[in-house]
């Protein structure tokens, strides 16, 4: 039965539809807990969850922390500053040393693709990838799937367009794997410098015209574009990017009237999304945040212990 074939959650690639649906169903149970006035259940009492964040991330880290605390786990946070990471300890050393303290779950955010997989090979704890470089951000993919499934009932045949720096986006990858597993058709849209043709091998359609990519879409996910990409290397300027790939009120006219707008946050207001659109009625950015906590609770719950059915 188990949702996760392995005890870690390193990515959504390869997860079955059944496994993803089960994660989302579990997240709904968790969201009910989150909405109570007493936001605490004893489920993970006595479990230790370590948040190992090598990249600054207020919201993902907070979201994991809330999730762990609502489930009564003990949480420990290690961030780049003030840890031995800055003293030149390798990631493998960090993993081995943490392991010796018997954590049950290690949540890791790291700038290098594959970092979560590397840590998982050097610890007995379950490892949850909270974003590794440009590889995957599975809980983001799950929360996006949950947000959309809730609005639509099912994702089958729905068209989701992801716009922006898909080449460097772990969100785009996890969304592509997660949403297509649930039956959605995903389009990646961006300038050719950020849209290599090999991306089509992820099972998505590629488009360089924003208008064509969003016309007929049921949901549009606008990615944040890092400033470092807009220094003339990949993109001439943020001004030109915004003009060509930004979503404002004018571009909104191209969308179906009931199309949803998503964003993994934090929003670069005025670059990829105009404030009117970000705060508009089609935006589901805040529900995404709530679902983020619920999904992370579900993930922690499912990785934190063995497989129930085996124990009867």
């Amino acid at each position, binding site marked *: *039965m188990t*949702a996760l074939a392995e005890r870690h959650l390193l990515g959504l690639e390869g997860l079955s539809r059944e496994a993803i649906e*089960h994660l989302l*169903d*579990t997240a*709904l*149970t968790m*969201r*009910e*807990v989150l909405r*109570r*006035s*007493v936001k*605490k*259940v*004893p*489920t*993970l*009492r*006595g*479990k230790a969850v370590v948040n190992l964040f090598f990249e600054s991330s207020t919201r993902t880290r907070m979201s994991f922390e809330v999730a762990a605390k609502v*489930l009564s786990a003990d949480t420990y946070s290690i961030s780049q500053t003030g840890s031995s990471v800055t003293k030149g300890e390798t990631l493998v050393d960090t993993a081995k040393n943490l392991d010796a303290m018997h954590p049950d779950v290690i949540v890791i955010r790291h700038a290098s693709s594959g970092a979560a997989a590397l840590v998982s090979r050097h610890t007995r704890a379950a490892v949850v990838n909270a974003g590794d470089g440009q590889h995957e951000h599975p809980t983001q993919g799950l929360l996006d799937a949950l947000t959309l499934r809730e609005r639509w009932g099912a994702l089958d045949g729905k068209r989701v367009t992801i716009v922006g720096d898909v080449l460097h986006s772990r969100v785009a990858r996890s969304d592509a794997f997660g949403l297509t597993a649930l039956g959605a058709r995903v389009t990646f849209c961006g300038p050719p410098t950020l849209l290599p043709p090999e991306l089509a091998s992820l099972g998505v359609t590629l488009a360089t015209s924003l208008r064509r990519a969003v016309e007929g879409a049921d949901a549009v996910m606008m990615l944040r574009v890092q400033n470092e990409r807009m220094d003339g290397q990949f993109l001439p300027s943020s001004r030109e990017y915004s003009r060509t790939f930004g979503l404002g009120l004018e571009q909104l006219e191209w969308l179906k009237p009931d199309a949803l707008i998503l964003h993994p946050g934090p929003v670069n207001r005025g670059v990829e999304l105009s404030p009117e659109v970000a705060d508009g009625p089609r935006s589901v950015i805040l529900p995404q945040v709530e679902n983020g906590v619920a999904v992370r609770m579900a993930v922690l*719950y*499912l990785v*934190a*212990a*063995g*497989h*129930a059915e*085996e*124990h009867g």
Partner: protein
Amino acid sequence: MTTQRLRGPAEVRALVGELCDGIHRALAGAPDAALVGVRRGGIALAGRVAADLQARGMRIDRGAVDIALYRDDAHLALPRPESGPTEIEFPLDGRQVVILDDVFWTGRTARAAMDAVLDFGRPQRLWLAVLAQSPHRELPIVPDVAPLVVEAARGERLELRLVEDGHPDDELVLVRSLR
């Protein structure tokens, strides 16, 4: 795995009647009580009991509690949450609240259900009612209402099957797992 029918449809109906009588007696005088079914076995049963009590003129709120997140065996293994979340969309403070499950076995589910319900408020009196119980208690908890006592061995369990849950007939069965 073998199953043995202990009670047929008519007997189950009679037992539910006794259960309702017991709850009705317990709640005597309470102006508005609440009934919380334990997922999953207590949900359909709570529907019948609530209808019966309402037919007797009682005002009664009905909810559901999922105890997966309150189990005490998380260090061993966690169960997958049952098919629905906890739904208690009414206040519990100061009220008479009945936790209803189909079967009382070790008491661990009842313990978890009590913890879960108490996270939603502070009832004036909390009751525990089941259709059947078997004396394998592992905790010092006894149901307030339990019309049937079944002698069962370890490795056996009771299952209440109701038509509301898709079963062809109402029945109470003893399930014996083969070792």
